Protein backbone atom coordinates (compact mmCIF):
# COMPACT_ATOMS: atom_id res chain seq x y z
CA UNK A 1 0.00 0.00 0.00
CA UNK A 2 2.78 2.42 0.98
CA UNK A 3 4.78 1.37 -2.09
CA UNK A 4 1.80 2.04 -4.33
CA UNK A 5 1.38 5.48 -2.82
CA UNK A 6 5.06 6.26 -3.24
CA UNK A 7 5.03 5.21 -6.88
CA UNK A 8 1.99 7.38 -7.54
CA UNK A 9 3.65 10.30 -5.78
CA UNK A 10 6.86 10.06 -7.79
CA UNK A 11 4.87 9.61 -11.02
CA UNK A 12 2.98 12.84 -10.32
CA UNK A 13 6.17 14.78 -9.50
CA UNK A 14 7.91 13.54 -12.65
CA UNK A 15 4.90 14.38 -14.82
CA UNK A 16 4.60 17.85 -13.31
CA UNK A 17 8.31 18.52 -13.83
CA UNK A 18 8.04 17.80 -17.55
CA UNK A 19 4.57 19.24 -18.17
CA UNK A 20 4.65 22.49 -16.19
CA UNK A 21 6.92 24.56 -18.48
CA UNK A 22 4.82 23.57 -21.51
CA UNK A 23 1.54 24.46 -19.82
CA UNK A 24 2.99 27.71 -18.45
CA UNK A 25 4.16 29.02 -21.81
CA UNK A 26 0.83 28.19 -23.42
CA UNK A 27 -0.95 30.16 -20.68
CA UNK A 28 1.60 32.98 -21.00
CA UNK A 29 0.96 33.23 -24.73
CA UNK A 30 -2.76 33.73 -24.00
CA UNK A 31 -2.28 36.26 -21.17
CA UNK A 32 -3.37 39.86 -21.93
CA UNK A 33 -0.42 42.24 -21.56
CA UNK A 34 -2.17 44.17 -18.75
CA UNK A 35 -2.45 40.94 -16.71
CA UNK A 36 1.12 39.96 -17.57
CA UNK A 37 2.59 43.17 -16.16
CA UNK A 38 0.40 43.03 -13.05
CA UNK A 39 2.56 41.49 -10.30
CA UNK A 40 -0.54 40.53 -8.32
CA UNK A 41 -1.85 38.25 -11.06
CA UNK A 42 0.13 35.04 -11.24
CA UNK A 43 -2.41 33.66 -13.68
CA UNK A 44 -4.55 35.74 -16.06
CA UNK A 45 -8.19 36.44 -15.25
CA UNK A 46 -9.11 36.30 -18.92
CA UNK A 47 -7.45 34.90 -22.02
CA UNK A 48 -6.70 36.54 -25.34
CA UNK A 49 -5.58 35.44 -28.80
CA UNK A 50 -4.15 38.91 -29.43
CA UNK A 51 -0.45 37.99 -29.20
CA UNK A 52 -0.80 34.93 -31.40
CA UNK A 53 -2.76 36.97 -33.94
CA UNK A 54 -0.15 39.73 -33.99
CA UNK A 55 2.71 37.27 -34.15
CA UNK A 56 1.18 35.65 -37.21
CA UNK A 57 -0.22 38.64 -39.05
CA UNK A 58 1.78 41.72 -38.03
CA UNK A 59 5.15 40.14 -37.30
CA UNK A 60 5.22 37.88 -40.39
CA UNK A 61 4.93 34.68 -38.36
CA UNK A 62 2.49 33.29 -40.87
CA UNK A 63 4.97 33.59 -43.71
CA UNK A 64 7.74 32.06 -41.58
CA UNK A 65 5.45 29.13 -40.66
CA UNK A 66 4.70 28.47 -44.33
CA UNK A 67 8.44 28.70 -45.06
CA UNK A 68 9.14 26.14 -42.35
CA UNK A 69 6.51 23.79 -43.76
CA UNK A 70 7.91 24.15 -47.27
CA UNK A 71 11.48 23.48 -46.13
CA UNK A 72 10.37 20.44 -44.12
CA UNK A 73 8.30 19.14 -47.04
CA UNK A 74 11.15 19.37 -49.55
CA UNK A 75 13.64 17.88 -47.06
CA UNK A 76 11.40 14.91 -46.24
CA UNK A 77 10.59 14.21 -49.89
CA UNK A 78 14.18 14.46 -51.00
CA UNK A 79 15.68 12.46 -48.14
CA UNK A 80 13.22 9.59 -48.65
CA UNK A 81 13.70 9.63 -52.41
CA UNK A 82 17.47 9.43 -52.00
CA UNK A 83 17.65 7.40 -48.78
CA UNK A 84 14.98 4.70 -49.20
CA UNK A 85 16.92 2.76 -51.88
CA UNK A 86 20.01 2.81 -49.66
CA UNK A 87 17.98 1.58 -46.67
CA UNK A 88 16.60 -1.19 -48.87
CA UNK A 89 20.09 -2.17 -50.06
CA UNK A 90 21.32 -2.38 -46.46
CA UNK A 91 18.62 -4.90 -45.46
CA UNK A 92 18.15 -7.01 -48.57
CA UNK A 93 21.65 -7.36 -49.99
CA UNK A 94 24.98 -8.64 -48.84
CA UNK A 95 27.84 -6.74 -50.41
CA UNK A 96 31.43 -5.85 -49.60
CA UNK A 97 31.81 -2.58 -47.73
CA UNK A 98 28.34 -2.81 -46.18
CA UNK A 99 29.55 -2.35 -42.63
CA UNK A 100 31.88 0.47 -43.61
CA UNK A 101 28.95 2.20 -45.30
CA UNK A 102 26.71 1.76 -42.27
CA UNK A 103 29.43 3.02 -39.96
CA UNK A 104 30.14 6.11 -42.02
CA UNK A 105 26.43 6.90 -42.14
CA UNK A 106 26.39 6.62 -38.34
CA UNK A 107 29.43 8.85 -38.03
CA UNK A 108 27.78 11.65 -40.00
CA UNK A 109 25.49 12.05 -37.01
CA UNK A 110 28.37 13.46 -35.03
CA UNK A 111 28.94 16.08 -37.72
CA UNK A 112 28.18 19.48 -36.21
CA UNK A 113 25.71 21.42 -38.35
CA UNK A 114 27.94 24.47 -37.99
CA UNK A 115 30.41 22.91 -40.34
CA UNK A 116 28.01 22.70 -43.28
CA UNK A 117 26.18 25.99 -42.80
CA UNK A 118 29.05 28.43 -43.39
CA UNK A 119 30.59 26.91 -46.57
CA UNK A 120 27.13 26.25 -48.03
CA UNK A 121 26.33 29.93 -47.77
CA UNK A 122 29.49 30.72 -49.75
CA UNK A 123 28.50 28.10 -52.33
CA UNK A 124 24.88 29.29 -52.52
CA UNK A 125 25.94 32.87 -53.17
CA UNK A 126 28.09 31.64 -56.04
CA UNK A 127 25.35 29.56 -57.69
CA UNK A 128 22.60 32.06 -56.88
CA UNK A 129 20.41 30.21 -54.40
CA UNK A 130 21.41 32.11 -51.27
CA UNK A 131 18.51 33.16 -49.05
CA UNK A 132 16.16 30.63 -50.65
CA UNK A 133 14.06 27.94 -49.02
CA UNK A 134 15.47 25.38 -51.44
CA UNK A 135 18.94 26.12 -50.09
CA UNK A 136 17.83 25.51 -46.50
CA UNK A 137 15.98 22.35 -47.54
CA UNK A 138 19.07 20.96 -49.30
CA UNK A 139 21.11 21.52 -46.14
CA UNK A 140 18.41 20.00 -43.92
CA UNK A 141 18.30 16.98 -46.20
CA UNK A 142 21.97 16.28 -45.53
CA UNK A 143 21.10 16.24 -41.82
CA UNK A 144 17.97 14.05 -42.24
CA UNK A 145 19.23 11.66 -44.91
CA UNK A 146 21.51 9.54 -42.66
CA UNK A 147 18.61 9.13 -40.23
CA UNK A 148 16.28 8.05 -43.07
CA UNK A 149 18.77 5.48 -44.40
CA UNK A 150 19.21 3.85 -40.99
CA UNK A 151 15.55 3.97 -40.02
CA UNK A 152 14.23 2.61 -43.33
CA UNK A 153 16.77 -0.16 -43.25
CA UNK A 154 15.57 -1.14 -39.79
CA UNK A 155 11.88 -0.95 -40.73
CA UNK A 156 12.36 -2.99 -43.90
CA UNK A 157 14.38 -5.62 -42.07
CA UNK A 158 11.33 -6.15 -39.86
CA UNK A 159 9.35 -7.27 -42.92
CA UNK A 160 10.15 -10.80 -43.99
CA UNK A 161 11.81 -11.13 -47.38
CA UNK A 162 9.72 -14.26 -47.95
CA UNK A 163 6.65 -12.18 -48.76
CA UNK A 164 8.57 -10.59 -51.61
CA UNK A 165 9.79 -13.97 -52.80
CA UNK A 166 6.25 -15.32 -52.79
CA UNK A 167 5.14 -12.33 -54.86
CA UNK A 168 7.95 -12.93 -57.34
CA UNK A 169 6.92 -16.58 -57.71
CA UNK A 170 3.50 -15.30 -58.71
CA UNK A 171 5.04 -13.21 -61.42
CA UNK A 172 5.86 -9.84 -59.85
CA UNK A 173 9.12 -8.20 -60.80
CA UNK A 174 11.78 -7.45 -58.20
CA UNK A 175 10.62 -3.85 -58.03
CA UNK A 176 6.93 -4.80 -58.24
CA UNK A 177 7.29 -7.12 -55.27
CA UNK A 178 8.82 -4.31 -53.26
CA UNK A 179 6.26 -1.71 -54.31
CA UNK A 180 3.17 -3.91 -53.98
CA UNK A 181 4.04 -6.04 -50.95
CA UNK A 182 6.79 -4.61 -48.78
CA UNK A 183 6.05 -0.92 -49.15
CA UNK A 184 2.40 -1.11 -47.93
CA UNK A 185 3.51 -3.20 -44.95
CA UNK A 186 6.24 -0.70 -44.12
CA UNK A 187 3.99 2.32 -44.53
CA UNK A 188 3.09 3.00 -40.86
CA UNK A 189 6.75 2.86 -39.85
CA UNK A 190 7.77 5.02 -42.78
CA UNK A 191 5.07 7.57 -41.90
CA UNK A 192 6.38 7.72 -38.33
CA UNK A 193 9.92 8.28 -39.58
CA UNK A 194 8.68 11.03 -41.89
CA UNK A 195 7.15 12.73 -38.85
CA UNK A 196 10.48 12.47 -37.04
CA UNK A 197 12.19 13.95 -40.07
CA UNK A 198 9.63 16.75 -40.02
CA UNK A 199 10.45 17.56 -36.40
CA UNK A 200 14.19 17.57 -37.14
CA UNK A 201 13.69 20.15 -39.89
CA UNK A 202 10.99 22.17 -38.08
CA UNK A 203 13.22 22.58 -35.01
CA UNK A 204 16.52 23.29 -36.76
CA UNK A 205 17.65 26.84 -36.15
CA UNK A 206 21.39 27.25 -36.83
CA UNK A 207 21.53 26.33 -40.52
CA UNK A 208 18.30 28.18 -41.25
CA UNK A 209 19.54 31.36 -39.55
CA UNK A 210 22.88 31.34 -41.32
CA UNK A 211 21.51 30.58 -44.79
CA UNK A 212 18.62 33.04 -44.90
CA UNK A 213 18.01 36.73 -44.35
CA UNK A 214 14.52 37.48 -45.64
CA UNK A 215 13.07 34.04 -46.32
CA UNK A 216 13.41 32.89 -42.74
CA UNK A 217 11.92 29.70 -41.32
CA UNK A 218 9.98 30.01 -38.08
CA UNK A 219 12.79 29.18 -35.61
CA UNK A 220 15.21 31.43 -37.52
CA UNK A 221 12.62 34.21 -37.53
CA UNK A 222 12.08 33.81 -33.80
CA UNK A 223 15.80 33.63 -33.00
CA UNK A 224 16.39 36.91 -34.79
CA UNK A 225 13.35 38.84 -33.59
CA UNK A 226 12.26 37.34 -30.27
CA UNK A 227 14.69 39.01 -27.94
CA UNK A 228 13.88 42.49 -29.22
CA UNK A 229 10.10 41.91 -28.98
CA UNK A 230 7.93 42.38 -25.88
CA UNK A 231 7.85 39.35 -23.59
CA UNK A 232 4.36 38.18 -24.53
CA UNK A 233 5.44 37.78 -28.16
CA UNK A 234 8.27 35.53 -27.00
CA UNK A 235 5.75 33.29 -25.27
CA UNK A 236 3.47 33.26 -28.31
CA UNK A 237 6.46 32.29 -30.47
CA UNK A 238 7.53 29.53 -28.09
CA UNK A 239 4.00 28.12 -28.06
CA UNK A 240 3.68 28.15 -31.85
CA UNK A 241 7.01 26.35 -32.16
CA UNK A 242 6.08 23.73 -29.56
CA UNK A 243 2.52 22.73 -30.43
CA UNK A 244 2.90 21.03 -33.84
CA UNK A 245 5.89 19.06 -32.61
CA UNK A 246 3.93 17.84 -29.59
CA UNK A 247 0.90 16.83 -31.65
CA UNK A 248 3.09 14.92 -34.06
CA UNK A 249 5.01 13.12 -31.37
CA UNK A 250 1.71 12.06 -29.85
CA UNK A 251 0.83 10.18 -33.04
CA UNK A 252 4.22 8.49 -33.20
CA UNK A 253 4.52 7.61 -29.52
CA UNK A 254 4.34 3.89 -30.35
CA UNK A 255 7.52 4.24 -32.40
CA UNK A 256 9.33 6.51 -29.98
CA UNK A 257 11.69 3.95 -28.53
CA UNK A 258 12.63 2.29 -31.80
CA UNK A 259 13.18 5.62 -33.57
CA UNK A 260 15.56 7.04 -31.02
CA UNK A 261 17.07 3.65 -30.30
CA UNK A 262 17.95 3.20 -33.96
CA UNK A 263 18.92 6.70 -34.84
CA UNK A 264 21.31 6.91 -31.92
CA UNK A 265 22.83 3.47 -31.72
Amino acid sequence: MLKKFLIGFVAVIVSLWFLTPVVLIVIASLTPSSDFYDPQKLFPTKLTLDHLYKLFVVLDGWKATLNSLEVAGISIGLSFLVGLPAGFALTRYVFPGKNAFRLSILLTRSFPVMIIAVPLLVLYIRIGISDTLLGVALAHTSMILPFVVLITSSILSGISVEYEEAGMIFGLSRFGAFAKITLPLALPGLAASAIFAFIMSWNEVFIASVLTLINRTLPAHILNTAMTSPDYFKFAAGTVMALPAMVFIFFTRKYLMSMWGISLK
Partner: protein
Amino acid sequence: MVYRKDIIPFLLLLPTLAYLVLFLGYPLVQTFILAFTSDKGAFGNFQQLISTGEFWKTLKNTLLITGVVVPLQLVLALLLALFVNMRFRGYTIVLYIISIPLALSDVSAALMSYSIFAPMGYLNKLLLKLDIIQYPIYFFGFMFKTREFWVIVLTEVWRATPLVFVIILAGLQAVNKEYLEAADIFGFSAWQKFRKIILPILKPSILSALLIRTIFAFQIFGVVWLLAGRDIPILAGEAFYWQTEVNNAHMASAYALIIALVSLIISWAYLTFLKPAQGSTA
Protein backbone atom coordinates in the same frame (compact mmCIF):
# COMPACT_ATOMS: atom_id res chain seq x y z
CA MET B 1 19.72 -13.32 -47.99
CA VAL B 2 18.71 -14.88 -51.23
CA TYR B 3 19.72 -12.28 -53.75
CA ARG B 4 22.94 -12.67 -55.59
CA LYS B 5 25.90 -10.38 -55.13
CA ASP B 6 25.80 -7.98 -58.00
CA ILE B 7 25.93 -4.35 -58.90
CA ILE B 8 22.38 -3.49 -57.80
CA PRO B 9 23.14 -2.70 -54.14
CA PHE B 10 25.79 -0.23 -55.20
CA LEU B 11 23.41 1.47 -57.57
CA LEU B 12 20.92 1.74 -54.70
CA LEU B 13 23.56 3.33 -52.45
CA LEU B 14 24.80 5.70 -55.11
CA PRO B 15 22.26 8.53 -54.62
CA THR B 16 22.89 8.63 -50.88
CA LEU B 17 26.65 8.58 -51.33
CA ALA B 18 26.54 11.27 -53.99
CA TYR B 19 24.30 13.47 -51.84
CA LEU B 20 26.46 13.13 -48.76
CA VAL B 21 29.66 13.81 -50.71
CA LEU B 22 28.08 16.92 -52.18
CA PHE B 23 26.39 18.29 -49.06
CA LEU B 24 28.62 16.98 -46.26
CA GLY B 25 31.96 16.16 -47.86
CA TYR B 26 32.26 19.26 -49.99
CA PRO B 27 31.30 21.68 -47.16
CA LEU B 28 33.75 19.90 -44.88
CA VAL B 29 36.60 20.46 -47.34
CA GLN B 30 35.46 24.06 -47.86
CA THR B 31 35.44 24.65 -44.10
CA PHE B 32 39.08 23.61 -43.98
CA ILE B 33 39.93 25.88 -46.89
CA LEU B 34 38.05 28.82 -45.40
CA ALA B 35 39.52 28.31 -41.94
CA PHE B 36 43.08 28.05 -43.22
CA THR B 37 43.03 31.07 -45.51
CA SER B 38 43.59 34.57 -44.17
CA ASP B 39 45.61 37.68 -44.89
CA LYS B 40 48.22 36.50 -42.42
CA GLY B 41 48.96 33.04 -43.81
CA ALA B 42 47.40 29.65 -43.23
CA PHE B 43 47.14 29.90 -39.47
CA GLY B 44 46.16 33.57 -39.36
CA ASN B 45 42.58 32.89 -38.27
CA PHE B 46 43.63 30.56 -35.50
CA GLN B 47 46.28 33.01 -34.33
CA GLN B 48 43.68 35.76 -34.16
CA LEU B 49 41.30 33.36 -32.45
CA ILE B 50 43.73 32.47 -29.69
CA SER B 51 45.23 35.91 -29.24
CA THR B 52 41.94 37.65 -28.45
CA GLY B 53 41.40 35.69 -25.26
CA GLU B 54 37.74 35.45 -26.20
CA PHE B 55 38.36 31.97 -27.54
CA TRP B 56 39.53 30.51 -24.23
CA LYS B 57 36.53 31.98 -22.47
CA THR B 58 34.34 30.44 -25.16
CA LEU B 59 35.97 27.05 -24.89
CA LYS B 60 35.79 27.16 -21.10
CA ASN B 61 32.08 28.03 -21.12
CA THR B 62 31.25 25.29 -23.61
CA LEU B 63 33.21 22.70 -21.64
CA LEU B 64 31.68 23.92 -18.38
CA ILE B 65 28.10 23.63 -19.68
CA THR B 66 28.85 20.18 -21.11
CA GLY B 67 30.58 19.07 -17.94
CA VAL B 68 27.72 20.14 -15.69
CA VAL B 69 24.78 19.20 -17.90
CA VAL B 70 25.74 15.75 -19.17
CA PRO B 71 26.42 14.03 -15.80
CA LEU B 72 23.21 15.54 -14.35
CA GLN B 73 21.24 14.23 -17.31
CA LEU B 74 22.76 10.79 -16.99
CA VAL B 75 21.92 10.41 -13.30
CA LEU B 76 18.38 11.77 -13.70
CA ALA B 77 17.73 9.68 -16.81
CA LEU B 78 18.99 6.53 -15.09
CA LEU B 79 16.66 7.10 -12.12
CA LEU B 80 13.73 7.89 -14.42
CA ALA B 81 14.35 4.82 -16.57
CA LEU B 82 14.54 2.50 -13.56
CA PHE B 83 11.34 4.08 -12.23
CA VAL B 84 9.33 3.79 -15.47
CA ASN B 85 10.66 0.28 -16.02
CA MET B 86 8.76 -0.82 -12.88
CA ARG B 87 5.78 -0.77 -15.25
CA PHE B 88 3.26 0.38 -12.67
CA ARG B 89 -0.30 1.06 -13.74
CA GLY B 90 -0.38 4.04 -16.09
CA TYR B 91 3.37 4.03 -16.76
CA THR B 92 2.74 4.57 -20.47
CA ILE B 93 1.23 7.99 -19.71
CA VAL B 94 4.31 8.95 -17.68
CA LEU B 95 6.48 7.64 -20.51
CA TYR B 96 4.68 9.86 -22.99
CA ILE B 97 4.92 12.92 -20.74
CA ILE B 98 8.65 12.41 -20.23
CA SER B 99 9.14 12.16 -23.99
CA ILE B 100 7.43 15.49 -24.76
CA PRO B 101 10.68 17.53 -24.64
CA LEU B 102 12.10 15.21 -27.30
CA ALA B 103 9.85 16.92 -29.82
CA LEU B 104 10.64 20.43 -28.67
CA SER B 105 13.25 22.65 -30.22
CA ASP B 106 15.91 24.41 -28.22
CA VAL B 107 14.15 27.65 -29.20
CA SER B 108 10.87 26.57 -27.55
CA ALA B 109 12.64 25.25 -24.48
CA ALA B 110 14.57 28.51 -24.04
CA LEU B 111 11.39 30.56 -24.32
CA MET B 112 9.63 28.29 -21.81
CA SER B 113 12.46 28.91 -19.38
CA TYR B 114 12.18 32.59 -20.10
CA SER B 115 8.46 32.57 -19.22
CA ILE B 116 9.41 31.25 -15.78
CA PHE B 117 12.54 33.29 -15.04
CA ALA B 118 11.73 36.60 -16.77
CA PRO B 119 11.56 39.73 -14.54
CA MET B 120 7.77 39.43 -14.71
CA GLY B 121 7.87 35.65 -15.14
CA TYR B 122 6.01 33.08 -13.10
CA LEU B 123 8.73 32.59 -10.51
CA ASN B 124 9.11 36.29 -9.71
CA LYS B 125 5.37 36.85 -9.63
CA LEU B 126 4.91 33.91 -7.27
CA LEU B 127 7.62 35.16 -4.91
CA LEU B 128 6.25 38.72 -5.05
CA LYS B 129 2.76 37.52 -4.32
CA LEU B 130 3.90 35.46 -1.34
CA ASP B 131 5.79 38.56 -0.09
CA ILE B 132 9.07 36.64 -0.07
CA ILE B 133 10.71 39.34 -2.19
CA GLN B 134 9.93 43.04 -2.67
CA TYR B 135 11.54 43.48 -6.11
CA PRO B 136 11.85 40.99 -8.97
CA ILE B 137 15.03 38.92 -9.10
CA TYR B 138 16.84 39.41 -12.40
CA PHE B 139 18.07 36.20 -13.99
CA PHE B 140 19.11 37.64 -17.34
CA GLY B 141 21.52 40.34 -18.41
CA PHE B 142 25.21 41.06 -18.46
CA MET B 143 25.25 41.69 -14.70
CA PHE B 144 23.88 38.28 -13.82
CA LYS B 145 26.04 35.82 -15.74
CA THR B 146 26.12 33.23 -12.98
CA ARG B 147 22.33 33.14 -12.78
CA GLU B 148 22.11 32.97 -16.57
CA PHE B 149 24.47 30.03 -16.51
CA TRP B 150 22.31 28.09 -14.07
CA VAL B 151 19.11 28.86 -15.95
CA ILE B 152 20.79 27.52 -19.09
CA VAL B 153 21.89 24.38 -17.22
CA LEU B 154 18.37 23.86 -15.88
CA THR B 155 16.85 24.35 -19.35
CA GLU B 156 19.26 21.90 -20.93
CA VAL B 157 18.68 19.33 -18.20
CA TRP B 158 14.93 19.67 -18.65
CA ARG B 159 15.08 19.56 -22.43
CA ALA B 160 17.55 16.76 -23.13
CA THR B 161 17.30 14.37 -20.17
CA PRO B 162 14.45 12.53 -22.01
CA LEU B 163 16.86 11.68 -24.83
CA VAL B 164 19.20 9.91 -22.42
CA PHE B 165 16.17 8.40 -20.69
CA VAL B 166 14.83 6.81 -23.89
CA ILE B 167 18.20 5.26 -24.75
CA ILE B 168 18.65 3.84 -21.26
CA LEU B 169 15.07 2.58 -21.08
CA ALA B 170 15.60 0.77 -24.38
CA GLY B 171 18.76 -0.73 -22.88
CA LEU B 172 16.83 -1.90 -19.81
CA GLN B 173 14.69 -4.14 -22.02
CA ALA B 174 17.76 -6.34 -22.40
CA VAL B 175 17.76 -7.11 -18.68
CA ASN B 176 16.22 -10.56 -18.40
CA LYS B 177 13.77 -10.95 -15.50
CA GLU B 178 15.26 -14.36 -14.77
CA TYR B 179 18.63 -12.85 -13.91
CA LEU B 180 16.97 -10.73 -11.26
CA GLU B 181 14.96 -13.68 -9.93
CA ALA B 182 18.15 -15.70 -9.69
CA ALA B 183 19.74 -12.82 -7.80
CA ASP B 184 16.78 -12.82 -5.39
CA ILE B 185 17.39 -16.48 -4.64
CA PHE B 186 20.99 -15.69 -3.76
CA GLY B 187 19.81 -12.91 -1.50
CA PHE B 188 21.14 -9.92 -3.46
CA SER B 189 20.10 -6.51 -2.15
CA ALA B 190 18.50 -4.00 -4.52
CA TRP B 191 21.79 -2.09 -4.74
CA GLN B 192 23.75 -5.27 -5.50
CA LYS B 193 21.27 -6.20 -8.23
CA PHE B 194 21.72 -2.76 -9.77
CA ARG B 195 25.48 -2.75 -9.45
CA LYS B 196 26.22 -6.35 -10.48
CA ILE B 197 23.48 -7.14 -13.02
CA ILE B 198 21.68 -4.09 -14.39
CA LEU B 199 24.63 -1.72 -14.73
CA PRO B 200 26.90 -4.06 -16.72
CA ILE B 201 24.06 -4.84 -19.16
CA LEU B 202 23.31 -1.12 -19.48
CA LYS B 203 26.91 -0.16 -20.13
CA PRO B 204 26.66 0.06 -23.95
CA SER B 205 23.44 2.11 -23.76
CA ILE B 206 24.95 4.45 -21.20
CA LEU B 207 28.05 4.93 -23.31
CA SER B 208 26.10 5.68 -26.46
CA ALA B 209 23.81 8.07 -24.59
CA LEU B 210 26.86 9.80 -23.14
CA LEU B 211 28.46 10.12 -26.55
CA ILE B 212 25.39 11.56 -28.22
CA ARG B 213 24.71 13.98 -25.41
CA THR B 214 28.32 15.11 -25.10
CA ILE B 215 28.52 15.83 -28.83
CA PHE B 216 25.22 17.70 -28.85
CA ALA B 217 26.00 19.58 -25.65
CA PHE B 218 29.21 20.70 -27.29
CA GLN B 219 27.17 22.14 -30.15
CA ILE B 220 24.77 23.97 -27.82
CA PHE B 221 23.46 27.08 -29.52
CA GLY B 222 19.77 28.05 -29.39
CA VAL B 223 19.25 27.98 -25.64
CA VAL B 224 22.35 30.04 -24.86
CA TRP B 225 21.85 32.45 -27.75
CA LEU B 226 18.28 33.24 -26.75
CA LEU B 227 18.75 33.39 -22.99
CA ALA B 228 22.21 34.95 -22.68
CA GLY B 229 23.22 36.17 -26.13
CA ARG B 230 26.96 36.72 -26.04
CA ASP B 231 27.06 37.33 -22.28
CA ILE B 232 28.11 33.71 -22.09
CA PRO B 233 30.08 33.14 -25.29
CA ILE B 234 30.03 29.54 -26.57
CA LEU B 235 31.71 27.92 -29.59
CA ALA B 236 28.64 27.60 -31.83
CA GLY B 237 27.47 31.06 -30.81
CA GLU B 238 30.81 32.58 -31.82
CA ALA B 239 30.69 30.76 -35.18
CA PHE B 240 27.22 32.24 -35.66
CA TYR B 241 28.35 35.69 -34.56
CA TRP B 242 31.36 35.78 -36.88
CA GLN B 243 29.27 34.55 -39.79
CA THR B 244 26.12 36.62 -39.47
CA GLU B 245 27.25 39.78 -37.68
CA VAL B 246 30.89 40.25 -38.71
CA ASN B 247 30.43 38.55 -42.09
CA ASN B 248 33.75 36.77 -41.71
CA ALA B 249 33.29 33.23 -43.02
CA HIS B 250 36.94 32.45 -42.27
CA MET B 251 36.71 32.97 -38.51
CA ALA B 252 33.29 31.29 -38.44
CA SER B 253 34.82 28.27 -40.18
CA ALA B 254 37.69 28.21 -37.70
CA TYR B 255 35.18 27.97 -34.84
CA ALA B 256 33.11 25.35 -36.70
CA LEU B 257 36.24 23.32 -37.30
CA ILE B 258 37.11 23.33 -33.61
CA ILE B 259 33.62 22.05 -32.76
CA ALA B 260 33.98 19.32 -35.39
CA LEU B 261 37.44 18.38 -34.15
CA VAL B 262 36.26 17.93 -30.58
CA SER B 263 33.19 15.98 -31.78
CA LEU B 264 35.50 13.72 -33.74
CA ILE B 265 37.72 13.09 -30.71
CA ILE B 266 34.64 12.24 -28.62
CA SER B 267 33.31 9.85 -31.30
CA TRP B 268 36.66 8.17 -31.59
CA ALA B 269 36.94 7.75 -27.83
CA TYR B 270 33.45 6.31 -27.76
CA LEU B 271 34.10 3.80 -30.54
CA THR B 272 37.27 2.54 -28.88
CA PHE B 273 35.59 2.28 -25.48
CA LEU B 274 32.39 0.65 -26.70
CA LYS B 275 33.83 -2.11 -28.90
CA PRO B 276 35.17 -4.33 -26.09
CA ALA B 277 31.97 -3.80 -24.10
CA GLN B 278 29.85 -5.08 -26.98
CA GLY B 279 32.12 -8.08 -27.43
CA SER B 280 31.88 -9.11 -23.80
CA THR B 281 28.08 -8.93 -23.56
CA ALA B 282 27.39 -10.66 -26.88
